[in-house]
């Protein structure tokens, strides 16, 4: 899959993927589950890499504006 950098380690458990998806109202075809279990592992690893950045002082970039606009 073009975007994801492969990482080592075990894929996430297939039954976890299925349970999560069901909770979200998604029925995941059985053929997608192994690929998804690996992809989710790789994506979590990607976020761990992002978390190596020092984000102190970096706020949420989308400020909420409570004013009413026409």
């Amino acid at each position: 899959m073009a975007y994801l950098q492969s990482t080592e380690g075990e894929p996430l458990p297939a039954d976890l993927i299925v349970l999560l998806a069901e909770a979200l109202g998604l029925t995941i075809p059985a053929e997608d589950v192994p690929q998804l279990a690996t992809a989710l592992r790789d994506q979590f690893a990607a976020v761990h890499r992002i978390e190596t950045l020092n984000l102190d002082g970096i706020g949420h970039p989308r400020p909420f504006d409570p004013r009413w606009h026409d």
Partner: protein
Amino acid sequence: MTDPLTWSIARAAERLRRREVSSLDLTEATLARIDATEDRIHAYVTVRTEEARTTARARDRELAEGRWRGPLHGIPVAIKDLLYMEGTPTAAGSAALAGTPSPSNAAVVERLEEAGAVIIGKTVTHELAYGVNIPPTRSPWGENCYPGGSSAGSGAAVAARSAFGAIGTDTGGSIREPSSLNGLTGLKPTFGRVSRYGVVPLSPSLDHVGPMTRTVTDCALMLQAIAGYDPRDPGSIPEPVPAYLPGIDWPIHGMRLGVDRAFAFSAGIEPDVQEAFRTALQEYEAEGAQIIDITFPEANLMSPVGLTILLAEASQEHGELLRARGDRLDPATRVMLELGELLPGTHYITALRARTLLASLMRRTFDAHGLDALIAPTLPAPTVPIEQMYAPPAGEDPMTDAINASFGANVTGLPALTIPCGFSRQGYPIGLQLTARPFAEGTLFRLAHAYERRHDWTERPPELA
């Protein structure tokens, strides 16, 4: 008269204005080229044969009456099948959306029509522009070569001379990748420069619309026609649009180009690409530009940050489609949409905050070195055999590195342009990418034009053209 399909937009516009050729001539020639090449390259999903002829005749009547709308007047161009165009379905490359009528015209379609262009057809895109399935399009440079994506058809059509220019979209490199692989100039403008109104979204904070052409001047002409504020696009920015053509041929003496050699000459970049890029740096120096060594160690985080944002936003945009018609999506696209559904919201917020930091670090790099632009190879390889896309060796997708190289400009929103910088030993085009400060598209055109005019690469057609 030479074959008009070898002309650039600028040259065709000159001939049209002098009425040495008609828009109908150009349109008929383009339609004939489409007929001759489509069975091999599959660039188009819709060819607007009769509508294009009708528009061309109208443009010719206007010229006869002394009305000239500008350089795109009467020029046949193509648009990616992600843009709405009334009377033409927009399937966004997906069987799940086949036959969906366009509810309106995309802003870019409106602007192209106002500029007088003849929209000859809609081009193939990877499904939803996600770039993970394999569309039928093949490269005019070799039928066994991957044409890039997701603006695959736009790239192939312009390279094959079955359109004078085309519109693509770019969420992680989808204009620049196919432009580089097809030997074209392709621009991802600054975020907010070109309206996305009427474009099927993938990731609203990363999506961009831009031109793909055979020359730098043509790219500037197309951007001039489509750029500008549009309140219908929440990401549009009311920044004045300068005239891009004046100054495009100014010398570049003293301009400063930053190069991260650790990336440009890393093991992941193929030797032919490194060689072409090294020569390009020397040529820029010969033009008087200064090559400044920089380091940007956080560059390898652009892709994880971009992907996390993309996954969350794309699944939010297409969650309903996934649930209602997931069985009609290509499995590769479906898995990406499912993956986005499973991400924690905290990861999305973390990625957005990291994006702010990366944009600020990028600004610091430009400021600290007084840079006009960054320069780098556009892609790590000149081509990818199509069979490797179906069965990547050792499970690695050959386009992963390519996305790493291009995602930074989407994450930071900076304008980035690819231009041809030579050919591999096998004869496939190689591209270099220039990235500039926000809204400095004019700088990109000037730098690119100074390099382009040293070579005749834009005149060299691919085998299948």
